């Protein structure tokens, strides 16, 4: 092909030449003067270059060959200015890489249906309280009570079946209590797996007869099976010990099954291990219900049946927290609820950045096409069709975005990996990977950005007006006016997009700073926490529980480096823990149908408040006398006192708690408020003595140290191991680490948006600088004339600055208007920050103008240095 081309070209050349010579000879023979003969021959022949071109085109007929030629030309052009090419490719690589990465994550997490049988017909059903106060924060999706679930399943017919699961956690040990390990577990109803269409990889799933409170079957997830049991298939049928109780392994779940999240290690039957009575309760909300819709029934009809059953239950339990209605939720929505908004915001952010990148490359291409104006004009005059010229420019920008795209996809593989590792609790993590669809997306992205970046400059530079400019002298400025206008428009859009990104980043940053500096209401410096949970089988009496806890506290308090120690169910900032309803015997009973007051419920030892530096406001803290067998006491926080004892002294009054012994607890003290979780509004809290000896809850040991708190963690863990070698300790963190972990994703999305915004700002300023440099070079003559006529240097600087800052101002105004609408999107992600925060808007405007001025300053200075004599001479 190519090798023949060269020979053929020479051949055509020779043929034309010989025939042309012949024509010339003939003219001469006719008596025309040699010079005239030469021109006459040329006239008769027409444009030899065009003939050559067209003759060659006969042979290279295929589109592919044309394309190959254009690609070769474009590559050569790109290599001729490597700086530009590298910059453009780098910009494209970053933008396409980031967009592809985010698309990969978004698709896997938010779009791809879960890998179950007929996933479209699966739906989660939650209980829904209509009380406006419960919906004030967010629409409430309340977990389901076991009795409600059983009623729904038995009494409605719109669903093929309903399955249930609940959270659980076990201390997994060997047969002789060796190798204790805290494992995340789920209790799943026997029909859950068939309902999802999941079969065991080895063995079987649960049977109906195993799904009872005394059931002792267990299934392993593939992770645990491989990790702890070395993938030994003989484990099926054998026993494992969970919380000291033997369970028979009946099956192993397939490797791909990571529902509801990948941390789950063990499944037990739903009812297994629950106190028998709890299954008949309508007000213990801890169950998630997955239902499969019958194909011939609409979701609305099926749900209305469930709603009717639920409302009946509500009427029969007016005083208990039994919801009036139910709400559906898709499985994906259920899993991805917390990550959906940040992901969408990030997607918008990278979209913005991609747009900025494309505009920037377009801008650079316009500048280059301006430099090549003459070349294009000449080629066009020589008969190159406009189509060919546009095609060549398009191919150039497509090549840039293709090279950028390939680099970008490689980058995105690494970036996706990084993102997935950094992003805690991202659902469906295993399914996040680049596949054909992602590749197709990247290709579409490359094509779209190449077209966007190439088409604008190509059309403008080959327009007839530009070619007309060739005819005029180099002094002509008018011909390129339209191109300058185009560049300014591109720049304005680019700056507007940058402003939107900057404002979003600024708001997120401020919100994050607010979160970081939130006071949780207790000591956070040098406080180490660790959690353990005493197994009910071994610690079967409150006395045994107390003996362990008190001995441990004594030992810890005498450990070197420890200043104080506290023991309670949860520490501030570590999450809400449990909550419970109560009534106040001293107050008139609430009207029927009204919900009972509800508060966070936690335990505390006598030293808890002083060790964590939570101030006592009135009354007293617990003593060693507040323990099992003695009169029941409770300490409330300021918020509870304000809410339920307004204008009266709560001390000596009582809280009646049904769930905790159905007894009256005397209020002995009021302490200051603490915050259960950063970023959430505080809730009323009540504290019960840890020495009541309940073992239902996990315990958190908090240790205040003088120096580095992590240094005492090993000595303390050793103390615990000495007391009970089978007891696993988990969550060893300082309070600060716990708080930071709860902010982890906010910090990640904030820093990502921030880096996108920073990149956008750099791109925009580079764009601004480029446009202005170009503009200044083009107006050199004009400026020279102005200066020769007496213009001062300052006036020249002002002239150029004005030309550069005008698009910056327009872009800023446009960006602020767009932002005012766009901030709605991130409103719910902001904490303690208004979406239209004037400080942020002002700061962004100032930053942008400063950067823009900086970018304009160099060209402006250069313009003021123009030597009028030299420019006039060159004119």
């Amino acid at each position, binding site marked *: 092909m190519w090798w023949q081309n060269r020979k053929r070209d020479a051949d*055509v050349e020779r043929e034309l030449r010989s025939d042309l010579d012949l024509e010339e000879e003939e003219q001469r023979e006719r008596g025309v003067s040699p010079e005239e003969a030469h021109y006459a021959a040329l006239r008769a022949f027409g444009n030899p270059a065009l003939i050559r071109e067209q003759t060659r085109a006969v042979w290279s007929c295929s589109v592919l060959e044309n394309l190959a030629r254009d690609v070769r030309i474009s590559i050569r052009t790109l290599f001729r200015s490597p700086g530009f090419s590298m910059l453009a490719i780098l910009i494209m690589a970053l933008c396409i890489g980031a967009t592809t990465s985010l698309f990969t994550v978004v698709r896997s997490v938010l779009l791809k249906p879960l890998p179950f049988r007929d996933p479209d017909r699966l739906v989660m059903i939650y209980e829904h309280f209509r009380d406006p106060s419960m919906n004030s924060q967010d629409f409430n999706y309340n977990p389901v009570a076991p009795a409600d679930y059983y009623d729904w399943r038995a009494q409605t017919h719109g669903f093929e079946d309903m399955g249930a699961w609940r959270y659980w956690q076990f201390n997994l040990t060997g047969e002789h209590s060796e190798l204790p390990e805290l494992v995340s577990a789920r209790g799943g109803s026997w029909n859950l797996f068939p309902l999802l269409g999941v079969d065991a990889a080895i063995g079987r799933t649960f049977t109906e007869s195993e799904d009872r409170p005394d059931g002792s079957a267990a299934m392993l997830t593939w992770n645990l099976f491989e990790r702890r049991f070395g993938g030994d298939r003989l484990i099926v049928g054998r026993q494992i010990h969970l919380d000291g109780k033997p369970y028979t392994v009946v099956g192993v779940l397939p490797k791909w099954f990571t529902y509801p999240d990948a941390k789950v290690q063990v499944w037990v039957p739903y009812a297994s291990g629950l106190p028998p009575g709890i299954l008949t309760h309508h007000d213990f909300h801890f169950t998630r219900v997955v239902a499969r819709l019958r194909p011939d029934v609409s979701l609305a009809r099926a749900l209305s049946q469930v709603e009717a059953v639920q409302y009946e239950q509500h009427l029969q339990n007016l005083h208990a927290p039994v919801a009036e209605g139910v709400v559906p939720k898709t499985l994906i929505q259920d899993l991805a609820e917390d990550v959906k908004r940040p992901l969408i915001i990030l997607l918008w952010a990278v979209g913005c950045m991609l747009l900025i990148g494309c505009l920037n490359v377009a801008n650079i291409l316009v500048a280059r096409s301006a430099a090549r104006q003459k070349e294009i004009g000449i080629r066009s005059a020589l008969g190159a069709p406009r189509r060919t010229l546009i095609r060549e420019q398009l191919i150039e920008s497509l090549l840039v975005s293709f090279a950028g795209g390939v680099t970008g996809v490689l980058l995105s593989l690494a970036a996706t990996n990084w993102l997935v590792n950094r992003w805690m609790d991202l659902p469906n993590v295993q399914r996040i990977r680049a596949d054909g669809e992602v590749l197709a997306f990247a290709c579409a992205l490359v094509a779209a950005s190449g077209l966007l970046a190439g088409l604008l400059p190509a059309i403008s530079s080959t327009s007839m007006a530009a070619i007309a400019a060739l005819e005029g002298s180099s002094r002509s400025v008018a011909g390129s006016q339209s191109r300058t206008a185009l560049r300014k428009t591109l720049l304005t859009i680019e700056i507007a997009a940058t402003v939107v990104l900057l404002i979003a980043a600024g708001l997120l940053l401020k919100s994050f700073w607010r979160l970081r500096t939130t006071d949780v209401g207790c000591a956070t410096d040098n406080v180490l926490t660790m959690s353990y949970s005493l197994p009910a089988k071994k610690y079967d009496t409150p006395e045994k529980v107390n003996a362990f806890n008190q001995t441990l506290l004594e030992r810890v308090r005498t450990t070197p480096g420890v200043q104080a120690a506290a023991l309670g169910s949860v520490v501030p900032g570590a999450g809400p823990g449990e909550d419970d309803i109560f009534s106040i015997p001293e107050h008139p009973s609430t009207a029927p149908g009204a919900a009972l007051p509800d508060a966070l419920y936690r335990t505390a030892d006598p030293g808890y408040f002083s060790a964590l530096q939570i101030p006592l406001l009135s009354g007293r803290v617990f003593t060693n006398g507040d323990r099992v067998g003695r009169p029941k006491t409770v300490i409330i926080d300021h918020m509870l006192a304000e809410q339920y004892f307004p204008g009266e002294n709560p001390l000596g009054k009582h809280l009646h708690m049904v769930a905790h012994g159905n007894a009256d607890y005397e209020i002995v003290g009021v302490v200051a408020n603490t915050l259960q979780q950063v970023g959430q509004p505080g809730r009323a809290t009540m504290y019960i003595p840890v020495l009541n000896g309940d073992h239902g809850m996990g315990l958190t040991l908090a240790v205040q140290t003088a120096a580095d708190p992590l240094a005492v963690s090993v000595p303390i863990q050793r103390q615990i191991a000495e007391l009970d070698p089978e007891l696993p300790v988990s969550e060893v963190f300082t309070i600060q680490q716990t708080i930071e972990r709860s902010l982890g994703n906010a910090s990640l999305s904030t820093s990502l948006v921030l880096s996108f915004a920073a990149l956008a700002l750099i791109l925009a300023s580079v764009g601004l600088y480029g446009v202005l440099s170009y503009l200044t070079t083009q107006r050199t003559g004009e400026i020279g004339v102005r200066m020769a006529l007496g213009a001062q240097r300052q006036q020249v600087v002002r002239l150029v600055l004005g030309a550069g800052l005008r698009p910056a101002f327009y872009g800023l105004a446009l960006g602020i208007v767009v932002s005012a609408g766009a901030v709605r999107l991130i409103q719910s992600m902001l904490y303690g920050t208004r979406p239209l925060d004037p400080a942020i808007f002002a700061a962004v405007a100032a930053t942008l103008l400063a950067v823009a001025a900086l970018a304009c300053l160099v060209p402006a200075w250069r313009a003021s240095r123009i030597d009028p004599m030299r420019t006039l001479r060159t004119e």
Partner: protein
Amino acid sequence: MSSMGKQPQRANLLQGTLDMLILRTLLYGPAHGHQIGKHIQRTTNDFLQMQHGSLYPALHRLERRGWVTSKWEMAPDRNREFKYYRLTDKGRKQLVVEESQWKQMAEAVARVMWPAAEES
């Protein structure tokens, strides 16, 4: 506009007709591009002014289709090499086809244009 009258009247060749004319010209024997162009021009009394712009691409198109072959040969009168085109057997067959097509076409056009002449 005034120069219009001095120039001989020209007609645009119908698409594909040029191919037929070239093939017919080569029936007399091998010829190079200049000769072919001149021959067509002369034979039509300059009615068809040959545009080299279309002649050479047409020649190469015919060669590509295998209807003519080319060879650099010494010209008997000029003592210099020219690229001579020669009709192939395939080209001969093609000429017959094109000729009959052209005839049909011309007859069809004639029937519409001069219906009386057809009857007489």
